[in-house]
């Protein structure tokens, strides 16, 4: 049985035609199911988890990267298969998974190529698929309980990725079975007369603990969250079963 979660922004008029086409195609393919629409006013966590307990095997997220990230964090357990129908902007995960936008995504759903992918896990509570960003001034990072990284200079940005985004922009195949986070520390040195210089540090680690100030603002797919330190980060191996397309760049 299929279960569909629609993002709140899809209620805009401009998406009405696309939604109608998708629903018609899903009925043709015989994979239509219950539809739940996300809303700021409704707490969907309980509704969705209750419905899943009734025997739903496939949950389909209709929206963008943010919708997918929100959905996987709403679920009590990730023992079901998750599909994606991308609509509108900010759909980089769908591109990685080889899922075309709108109606064409329905055919990918019906072909059901399932790939388990690793997820990043923050403080044993919150999952992320791609990457997170945070300011890196005065931060102390413990990597794999072996060594510490002390970020001393100002103007640092720390990027921690489960799926390395830079590779996607270079249009190369991206590995997701490495069990390692890619930790990138970008330092920008501003000078008055010369052009600003950027220095990069790059590490690989399985497990990280970030300590520093009382709380650190973290940017997670266009969503800013303030998380208290220490922040523990680890990889949840093959945690999410996603329906992917044949033209995926994620291997």
């Amino acid at each position, binding site marked *: 049985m299929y279960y569909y979660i629609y993002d709140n922004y899809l209620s805009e008029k401009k998406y009405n035609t696309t939604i109608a086409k998708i629903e018609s195609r899903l009925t043709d393919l015989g994979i239509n199911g219950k539809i739940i629409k996300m809303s700021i006013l409704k707490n969907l966590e309980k509704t969705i988890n209750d419905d899943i307990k009734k025997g739903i095997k496939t949950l389909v997220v209709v929206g963008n990267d943010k919708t997918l990230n929100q959905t996987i964090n709403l679920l009590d357990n990730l023992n079901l298969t998750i599909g994606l129908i991308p609509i509108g902007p900010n759909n980089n995960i769908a591109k990685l998974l080889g899922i075309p936008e709108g109606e064409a995504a329905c055919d990918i759903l019906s072909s059901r190529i399932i790939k388990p992918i690793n997820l990043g896990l923050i403080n044993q509570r919150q999952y992320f698929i791609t990457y997170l960003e945070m300011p890196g001034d005065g931060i102390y990072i413990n990597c794999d309980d*072996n060594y510490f*990284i002390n970020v001393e200079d100002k103007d*640092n940005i720390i990027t921690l990725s489960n799926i390395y985004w830079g590779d996607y922009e270079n249009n190369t195949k991206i590995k997701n079975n490495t069990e390692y986070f890619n930790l990138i*520390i970008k*330092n920008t040195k501003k000078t008055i007369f010369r052009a600003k210089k950027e220095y*990069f*540090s790059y*590490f690989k680690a399985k497990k990280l603990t970030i300590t520093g100030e009382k709380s650190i603002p973290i940017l997670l797919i266009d969503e800013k969250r303030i998380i208290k330190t220490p922040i523990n980060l680890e990889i949840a191996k093959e945690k999410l079963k996603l329906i992917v397309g044949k033209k995926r760049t994620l291997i």
Partner: protein
Amino acid sequence: MFKENQTTSETDTIIGPSVKVEGDFVTEGNVIVEGTICGTIKTSRSLKVGPTSKIFANIWAENALIAGEIQGNLNISDKLELTSSAKIFGDIKTGNLSIAPGAILNGKCQMADSKTKATKPEFSKQKKLELKPQTPTNTEILD
């Protein structure tokens, strides 16, 4: 060994100038150090130490190209290259060594295995040669 302008895709770790690393840094990939490290560095591949870097650590690597300052012992299984800006305060153990003029090396240096050392011939058992200066004959003087 590292080449000039090597891309980051071939490198597993880059320790930039804004970063200080403390502890046991163990990896199986290439490492580039431009910042500061205190502790130990172990890699089964190559290590490149930039001119601005300061390392207070014992190092184990397959190959190393050093342009910065190291206070610690180096154990390089294959090739060690010290550029003119390199400063080493520690002992070196390596297979091949190349030192550019201007590099500073303060410590013991051990190269290759002791097996490659030539065996000393037993001089004591040989008969001593009598090496007397030859005096010219009378005929030679007359000539």
